[in-house]
């Protein structure tokens, strides 16, 4: 007697259909084998199911029982195959037909009840996208499939209840819950005391999606502003919501649904594979967990050079491919990079209040580590100096834009970009590639001449040249200007790399 039950397996962030083939044979000694490159958790299923079925007073066949998880050459990992296997066994021993167009997913406890596991969101999404009618899930996991429409969720609370459902042949579906609404109140930027230059840089970065580097002594609010920055970002769009949750669900990273853009802050001791992903069976790294969100690298110069180098390609491409013998895994990695660093080993080079204890050689070596191809891909560089303690108590000076205007400008700039890139593959000014710069950011003759002058005066490299144009497009958008003016360019020029001016 052979029955095939549909389930899934996860390969990186991708989901694959799996046929759980359950075969009960009269011949041979009573055994229970699970094959198909199953991991340990799955092979433990055998004991789980045996006890669970007995406790549920469902007959466990004393025959040769073989379960094959096909395709047989993909690694199967997870404890959720319990339900499909159990469904297959019940179908054979109770002579009940399993409904077509259905996926089964769930872990079984020894007492026969079902437990929720990670991976619900991805499974339900997969089912919807591949034309399934319904998914059988543990009843405790309903919240995890938020926001996916047009698919029936059949709640299963225990194996005995499953048997009843299959006998009845009618299933009462539940629809996944709708996404809750969140208020989009703008964050309070006055939490960050002083630092008008930094606030402006955060505004430009948030509006146009430009990577940002902050350089300054310890304690100047670099870490705090990175956290504040996360709140400045636009809410996740529908597609982005699905993308992000698919990642976290498939890779077993979160049992909860992600509603806000991810904010990842890996410590500088993170390994290369921890950062970009890897392993024998690849798991996503920080860059993938930061997809559609922010990757904040604090103490940038403390990261190993090779670790930072590995960021270059994914930062450029928006994804990272990892080849293994059996499969090539592609992990998405479209993130905004925010980095913070001290200017020298002791942290106080250029400080007006502390003496720098480093020799010039040490400072040079430290800053040289910051430079390079990674920095090239960061559009905004700002120095973040110490704030006078008096400014911490005073009212904000008139030169700081009020919080409302600050926020409104960002929203306006986003709307303009949304319209501008309607038919393009990029979504904001920061991700325009050099080939398309002049079609999206045309410059008047006057502006062009001005830029050439700046290029000469400040020795701008070709990359910096394009960065300035992209930044000035965002600055123009923030100021509600259709064209890029000289003023926008001349402000943009100030955000170039100014590490050590010798």
């Amino acid at each position, binding site marked *: 007697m052979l029955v095939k039950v549909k389930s899934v397996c996860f390969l990186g962030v991708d989901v694959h259909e799996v046929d759980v083939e359950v075969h009960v044979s009269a011949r041979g000694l009573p055994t229970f084998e699970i094959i198909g490159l199953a991991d340990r958790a799955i092979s433990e299923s055998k004991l789980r199911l045996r006890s669970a079925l007995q406790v549920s007073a469902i007959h466990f066949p004393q025959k040769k029982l073989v379960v094959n998880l096909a395709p047989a050459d993909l690694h199967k990992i997870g404890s959720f195959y319990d339900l499909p296997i159990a469904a297959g066994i019940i179908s054979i021993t109770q002579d009940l037909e399993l409904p077509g167009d259905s996926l089964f997913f769930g872990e079984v406890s020894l007492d026969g009840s079902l437990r929720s596991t990670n991976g619900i969101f991805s499974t339900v999404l997969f089912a919807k996208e591949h034309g399934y009618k319904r998914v059988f899930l543990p009843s405790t996991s309903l919240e995890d499939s938020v926001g996916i429409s047009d698919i029936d969720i059949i709640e299963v609370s225990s194996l005995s209840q499953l048997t009843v459902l299959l006998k009845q042949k009618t299933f009462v579906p539940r629809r996944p819950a709708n996404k809750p609404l969140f208020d989009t109140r703008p964050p309070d930027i006055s939490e960050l005391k002083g630092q008008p230059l930094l606030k402006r840089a955060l505004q430009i970065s948030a509006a146009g999606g430009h990577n940002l580097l902050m350089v300054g002594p310890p304690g100047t609010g670099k870490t705090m502003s990175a956290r504040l920055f996360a709140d400045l970002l636009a809410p996740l769009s529908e597609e982005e919501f699905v993308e992000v949750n698919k990642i976290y669900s498939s890779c077993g990273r979160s049992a909860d649904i992600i509603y806000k853009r991810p904010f990842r802050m890996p410590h500088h001791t993170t390994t290369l594979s921890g950062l970009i992903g890897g392993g024998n069976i690849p798991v996503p790294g920080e860059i993938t967990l930061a997809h559609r969100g922010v990757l904040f690298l604090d103490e940038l110069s403390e990261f190993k050079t090779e670790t930072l180098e590995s960021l270059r390609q994914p930062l450029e491409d928006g994804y990272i491919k990892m080849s293994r013998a059996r499969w090539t895994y592609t992990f998405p990695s479209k993130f905004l990079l925010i980095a913070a660093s001290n200017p020298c080993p002791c942290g106080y080079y250029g400080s007006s209040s*502390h003496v720098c204890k480093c020799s010039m050689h040490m400072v040079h070596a430290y800053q040289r580590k910051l430079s390079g191809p990674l920095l090239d891909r960061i559009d905004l560089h700002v120095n973040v100096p110490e704030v006078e303690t008096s400014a911490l108590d005073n009212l904000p000076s008139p030169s700081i834009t009020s919080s409302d205007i600050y926020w409104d400008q960002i929203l306006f700039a986003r709307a303009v970009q949304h319209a501008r890139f309607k038919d393009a593959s990029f979504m904001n000014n920061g991700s325009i590639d050099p080939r398309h710069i002049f079609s999206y950011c045309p410059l008047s003759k006057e502006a062009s001449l001005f830029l050439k002058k700046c290029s000469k005066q400040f020795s701008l490299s070709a990359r910096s040249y394009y960065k300035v144009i992209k930044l000035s497009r965002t600055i123009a958008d923030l100021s509600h200007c259709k064209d890029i003016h000289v003023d926008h360019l001349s402000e943009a020029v100030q955000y170039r790399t100014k590490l050590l001016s010798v």
Partner: protein
Amino acid sequence: MHLFDSPIVRELLYSDPLYPQLLKGIPSFPKTLYYLGKLRGNLFNKCLSIVGSRDMSPYATRVLDLFFEDLTGTDITIVSGFMCGVDQYAHTLALRNGLSTVAVLPYGVEHVADAATCGLRDSILSSNGLVLSEYAGADPPRKWMFHKRNRIVAGISSCVLVVEAGANSGSLITADYAYKFSRKVYAVPGNIFDPGSKGITQILSSFAKAVDCGWEIVNNYSVTRDRSDTIKTTLAHSADPVNARILSSLTISGMRVDELSALTSIEIPVLNSKLTQLQLQGFVKEWRGKFYAC
């Protein structure tokens, strides 16, 4: 490294009449000096040593520019340590103003510290200057060599000018030696809030004399020349009142954008924009994150 045209190293014994006389007066003077270049008889007659920090600020640059206006046309030999910063700028200005210059190295006379300074070395040698050292051969620099070199820089001249020095600057060692050898030590006052000037304040409060132009130093040497009054034409402030406000708020110790914004009440986007334009026009210079009026 220059593979061809290697200059010949010559020895200068203390017994030689060309050996700098003042140097012989210091305790444990170097018995032998090794040098590159053409040594003429009166090179060491009137020597002024100029020392200062390696991390030279635009202020120090302007100071040296100003002082050399008074040194031009004299027959004073400028002695310095060939290190980056004040030393090298002093050598450069000496060459530019037609003055002889002597570089005293803290390493073997044939050692080349880095390719960038080769040009300066060659310029010094081709303009009747000297590159000398207590150490023959190509010994790389070691810690003790700096102190020993500093005593030569102090002892070879009748006056020492310290342009800019932080609390732990090597120039203070030179100044100390000069004081011990009863030389005249001059120091240019700096900004009391700037850590880069702490050394200056130290020596000014003990043995150094404050000086704000080269004239007083030149007076120590019996030189006769015409001092042409050079009136620096002040650049007219731009017609733009915002620019004028920015320029008048920039202090000599430099200001960051944040401070400037608070002081002038000009918002960051406008301020950044104006600063770029002022830099293009040459009215403002940017260094280490701070802005200075030129």
